[in-house]
């Protein structure tokens, strides 16, 4: 019993140590934050012209534009993150350490969720102002969190997976986007329902949570094969 408690305690400490390490390196370089944040804002502006937004279609187009901006920015950050890890080698050193691979995976996912959430927290009020939608309300928090968790779970796994191949820039989006679509659909519909409640709509938040749980658990188990040398 005490052995197991110690093991869990150790894994917990390692988990936070990895997150803290990643966040500190992000804070030092600030590259990812800046480019992701700017990209998200830029995407929101571009969508405004691409969709010819007017008052009457804002509530239907807005949530989609918001999530596409978030997802593109997230993928940009995730792909960069992995490239840095591969080129400078902190991943190799991390894997030499006696840390369970699923702990590494989960820590990477949560680290990415924290980074993306900061970007979202900045971009969301800007979106609310630019698109004139009452989106900044407490009920958006669980949608953002579950959606971001799904994107980070898929993104972290596949970015790591494609990192070892010749054409990682091509393969990363090719593998990530199809699997992210269920997350996109769930998150966009849940956000839409927040703006214009639809009676008897599917429980999108529940579907989002189910997808996250399945994807996180299967990825946590299989991550060891992805990083195996």
């Amino acid at each position, binding site marked *: 019993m005490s052995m197991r408690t110690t093991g869990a305690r150790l894994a917990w400490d390692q988990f936070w140590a990895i997150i803290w390490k990643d966040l500190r390196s992000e804070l030092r370089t600030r590259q990812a934050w800046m480019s992701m944040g700017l990209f998200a804002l830029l995407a929101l502006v571009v969508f405004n012209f691409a969709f010819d937004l007017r008052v009457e279609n804002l509530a239907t187009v807005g949530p989609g534009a918001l999530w596409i901006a978030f997802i593109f920015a997230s993928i940009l950050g995730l792909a960069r993150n992995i490239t840095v890890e591969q080129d400078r080698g902190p991943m190799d050193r991390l894997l030499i350490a006696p840390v369970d691979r699923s702990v590494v995976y989960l820590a990477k996912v949560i680290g990415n969720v924290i980074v993306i959430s900061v970007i979202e927290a900045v971009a969301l009020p800007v979106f609310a102002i630019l698109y004139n939608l009452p989106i900044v309300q407490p009920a958006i928090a669980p949608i953002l969190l579950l959606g971001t968790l799904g994107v980070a779970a898929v993104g972290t796994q596949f970015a790591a997976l494609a990192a070892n*191949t*010749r054409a990682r820039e*091509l*393969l990363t989006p090719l593998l990530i986007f*199809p*699997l992210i679509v269920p997350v996109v659909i769930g998150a966009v519909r849940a956000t839409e329902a927040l703006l214009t409640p639809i009676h008897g709509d599917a429980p999108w938040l529940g579907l989002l949570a189910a997808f996250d749980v399945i994807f996180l658990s299967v990825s946590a188990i*299989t991550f060891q094969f*992805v990083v195996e040398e």
Partner: protein
Amino acid sequence: MQSVIQGSAKGRLDDITRRAPVVGAALEWMRRYGELALLGLTTLGMMLTIWAAFIYAPTELVEGPVQRIFYVHVPLAWISYLAFFFVLVGSALYLWRRDERWDAFARVNAEIGTVFTTLVLISGSLWGRAFWGAWWVWDERLTTSLLMWFIYVGYLALRTYTGRTAQGARAAAVVGILGFIVTPINYMSVKWWRTLHPDQVLPLGGTPQLPASMIVALMISLVTFTLLYVLLTTEVYKLERAQAEAERLRVDVELGELE
């Protein structure tokens, strides 16, 4: 290496023949004529399917003759589910056992599943054009089918980029496992959402939603397409193994020349 494997299989067969001559003889016959018999059965089944779909089955009252696409469309979809399920099985067994043959099995099934999903999308579009008046609608069933297609095309692209390496095989196996998540969503989509796509006609553990003659025609087609799938899997698997072997030999020869 190849001869060693065949040798051990031959030894096992001799062993079985000694203990149960009838079973041994049957296995020996299967080894010699199995594929030929399968080819014959599939050909016969295909002719029977064409007869059942076009002549035996009654014309649907609402949809008219175009409904007959159904007898091809549904079996194609069934085979793609089956193939993607075996990608999952092959991938998991490869990661567990590290036997290259499971990896080849998964790859072969991904190839076959992708081809069949393409045919499902095409046959569905033809029906949609006639019945809905549109080649494509963004219905949940259609959307998830397209996603399935993209996932396994991504899987095959990954295999192309990584080549026949252990690392590539492991990466592909992880995609093969995670990618399967969309397949059950696709199957259940017509139940979970109010889709334009027709409902399941043979719900798992439920009663068939069609007249008996249509069910018979569908069953003939399902059995035939399953036979075709087994035949294709066998042949493509052998081809895949031969290609891997040829690649290995070529590397051996090149290394030999360098020395």
